[in-house]
C-alpha cells in the first residue's frame, strides 16, 4: 500500500513539476509584451498583447477577417497583406497563396503570430463587417438532416449584404463540447429583409457546429454572428441567363439570389438545378414553385440521383452533373453560380468547362 501511494505521489509530483515548468516557459517565452498594430497605413492603429495569431488579435479589436475553418489553415480565406513585422511564409500557408501573393507578402492571418509591431493592409470593406447577437426566431426541419435557422437581429440593428454572401456563426459550449467554434454559412434570406438572417444547416456526422444547431439550439436562444463576408454574389452584367446549381444545404445562397433578382425585377433567365439523393432529401419545393409563379423567367429543376422505392418521382433523375449536361447547350451569354460540397463543385466545374463556360463565368464559394 505504501508503495502504491509513494508511486502515485512521485508520478503526480513529476507531472506537477513538468506542468509548472511549461506554464513558466509559456509565461516567459510566449510573452511578447505590448505591440502596436497599424492597419492600412495609419487608417487605424491599436496596441495589444502579443503572442496570439493575427486573426484572433484582430477579431478581438472587432475587425473580422473572413475565415471558414476557424484558424486551422485549411480554408485559405483569412488572407491579409503584411507590410512589416511578420516572419517568413510558413509551409502550411504556401498551398493557399499564388506566386504574386507570396511576393506581396500576403499571409494567412491565422498562421501569423503577433510578436512585434506590425503594419498590415486589409480591404476597407472588412471594416463594415459587424458582429450581431441575434435571437433564434424559427428552427424548421426541412428534411431529416437539414434545418432552416431564422435569426432575428436585435431591435434597431440592420444588416446590409449582397445576396450570396455568408455569415460566420459562433456556437456556444454544449454537451461534451467545451469550446466555442465558428463556421461559415451562406445567408439564405434576401437582402431586402435586413432584420433577419436565414441559415440552412445540414447535420454533418460528428460536426461540432452542425451538431450544435441540430441538437442543442432552441427557439429563443441568443446566437452570435459576424459578417457579411465573401465574393459570391450576382455579377450578371454581361449575361442574360444564369445557371444555378446546388446540392443539399447549398440551396441557401441560391435562394437568396433568386429572391433578390425577383424582387429587383431583373430580367435574367434563371435555371436552378437542385440535386438530392432521394425524395426525403428534397425541400423548399413549394417555395420554389411560388417563386416560379412570381418570376416567369425562373425555372426550378430538382433532380434525384437515387430515388428510393415508393418516391414516385417523375422529375429528373441522375447525378446533378449529368442532368446539367443534358439541359445545357453552349455557354453563350450564361453565367453559372454553384454551391455545394467540394467534390460536387469540381464535378460541376468540369461539366461547365466542357460546355464552353470559361472559369471567369463560374462563381462559387469553396468551403
Amino acid at each position: 500500500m505504501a508503495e502504491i501511494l509513494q508511486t502515485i505521489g512521485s508520478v503526480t509530483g513529476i507531472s506537477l513539476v513538468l506542468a509548472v515548468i511549461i506554464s513558466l516557459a509559456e509565461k516567459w517565452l510566449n510573452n511578447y509584451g505590448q505591440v502596436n498594430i497599424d492597419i492600412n497605413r495609419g487608417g487605424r492603429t491599436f496596441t495589444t498583447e502579443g503572442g496570439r495569431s493575427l486573426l484572433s488579435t484582430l477579431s478581438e479589436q472587432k475587425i473580422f477577417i473572413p475565415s471558414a475553418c476557424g484558424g486551422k489553415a485549411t480554408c485559405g480565406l483569412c488572407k491579409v497583406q503584411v507590410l512589416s513585422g511578420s516572419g517568413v511564409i510558413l509551409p502550411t500557408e504556401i498551398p493557399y497563396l499564388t506566386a504574386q501573393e507570396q511576393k506581396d507578402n500576403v499571409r494567412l492571418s491565422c498562421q501569423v503570430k503577433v510578436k512585434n509591431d506590425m503594419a498590415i493592409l486589409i480591404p476597407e470593406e472588412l471594416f463594415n463587417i459587424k458582429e450581431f447577437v441575434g435571437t433564434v426566431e424559427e428552427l424548421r426541419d426541412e428534411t431529416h438532416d437539414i434545418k432552416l435557422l431564422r435569426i432575428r437581429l436585435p431591435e434597431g440593428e440592420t444588416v446590409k449584404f449582397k445576396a450570396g454572401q455568408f455569415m460566420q456563426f459562433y456556437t456556444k459550449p454544449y454537451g461534451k463540447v467545451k469550446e466555442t467554434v465558428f463556421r461559415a454559412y451562406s445567408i439564405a434570406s434576401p437582402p431586402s429583409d435586413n432584420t433577419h438572417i436565414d441559415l440552412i444547416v445540414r447535420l454533418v456526422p460528428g460536426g461540432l457546429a452542425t451538431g450544435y444547431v441540430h441538437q442543442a439550439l432552441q427557439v429563443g436562444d441568443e446566437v452570435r454572428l459576424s459578417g457579411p463576408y465573401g465574393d459570391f454574389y450576382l455579377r450578371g452584367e454581361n449575361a442574360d441567363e444564369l445557371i444555378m446549381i446546388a446540392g443539399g444545404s447549398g440551396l441557401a445562397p441560391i435562394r437568396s439570389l433568386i429572391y433578390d433578382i425577383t424582387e429587383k425585377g431583373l430580367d435574367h433567365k434563371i435555371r436552378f438545378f437542385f440535386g438530392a439523393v432521394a425524395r426525403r432529401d428534397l425541400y423548399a419545393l413549394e417555395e420554389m414553385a411560388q417563386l416560379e409563379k412570381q418570376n416567369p423567367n425562373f425555372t426550378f429543376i430538382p433532380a434525384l440521383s437515387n430515388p428510393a422505392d415508393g418516391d414516385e418521382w417523375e422529375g429528373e433523375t441522375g447525378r446533378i452533373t449529368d442532368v446539367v449536361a443534358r439541359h445545357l447547350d453552349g455557354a453563350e451569354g450564361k453565367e453559372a453560380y454553384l454551391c455545394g460540397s467540394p467534390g460536387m463543385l469540381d464535378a460541376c466545374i468540369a461539366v461547365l468547362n466542357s460546355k464552353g463556360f470559361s472559369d471567369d463565368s463560374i462563381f462559387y464559394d469553396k468551403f
Partner: protein
Amino acid sequence: MIEFSAISPFVIFFASIATSNMILNNFLGMCSYLTISSEYKTATGLGKAVTLVIVVTNVINWLVYHYVIVPLNIEYMRYIIFIMVIAALVQIIEMAMDRYLPDLHANLGIFLPLITVNCAILGSTLFMIIRLYGFWQSLLFGIGSGLGWWMAICMLAAIRERMARAKLPPGLAGAGITFIITGLMALAFIGFSGIFTIQ
C-alpha cells in the same frame, strides 16, 4: 555479455550511426521515416528536428532517471515518466524556437509536435537506460542516433526523389518499394557490423 559502461563515448557515437543505426538496424521511428521521405527538403527538416529532440531528451531523461526515478524507487514507471518528459520538452523547445529562432521554427515547427510520438526518441532513451550508459556516453549516443536517423531518412528521400518518374510494377509503387529500398540499405549497413559492437 558486453560491459556497456566501459565503451568509449566516441565508439558509441560512431556505432549508433553505422552499426546500431536507429532505422537500419533497430527499425525504430519507421512511421515518419516512411511517410515524410518523399521529398529531400522536408526529410532533412524532419531529420534535424529529430536529432535536436533526441539529444535534448537523452540528456534530460538521463538526469531524470538517475536523480529522480532511481532515488524514488519507481523504475517500473519509467516509460510513462519518459514520455511525459519528452512531451513537455518538445513543447518548451517549440516555444523557445518560436521566440529566438523564428526562421528555424518556420522550417522545423510543423515537425516538432509530430516528433513527440516518434519511437526512435523513446527508443534512444530506453537503450541508454538498459545499457547502463553514463552521462557522456548517453550524450554521444543521442547525437549519434539522431545523426544516424537523419542520414537514413535523407538517403531514402534522395533515392525516392530520383525514382519518382521510374516505371514501377503497380503493386510495388509507394510503400512496397520503400520497404524494399530500406531493406537493401539495411543489408548494406550489415557490412559495417563487427567494426563496433554496442548491442
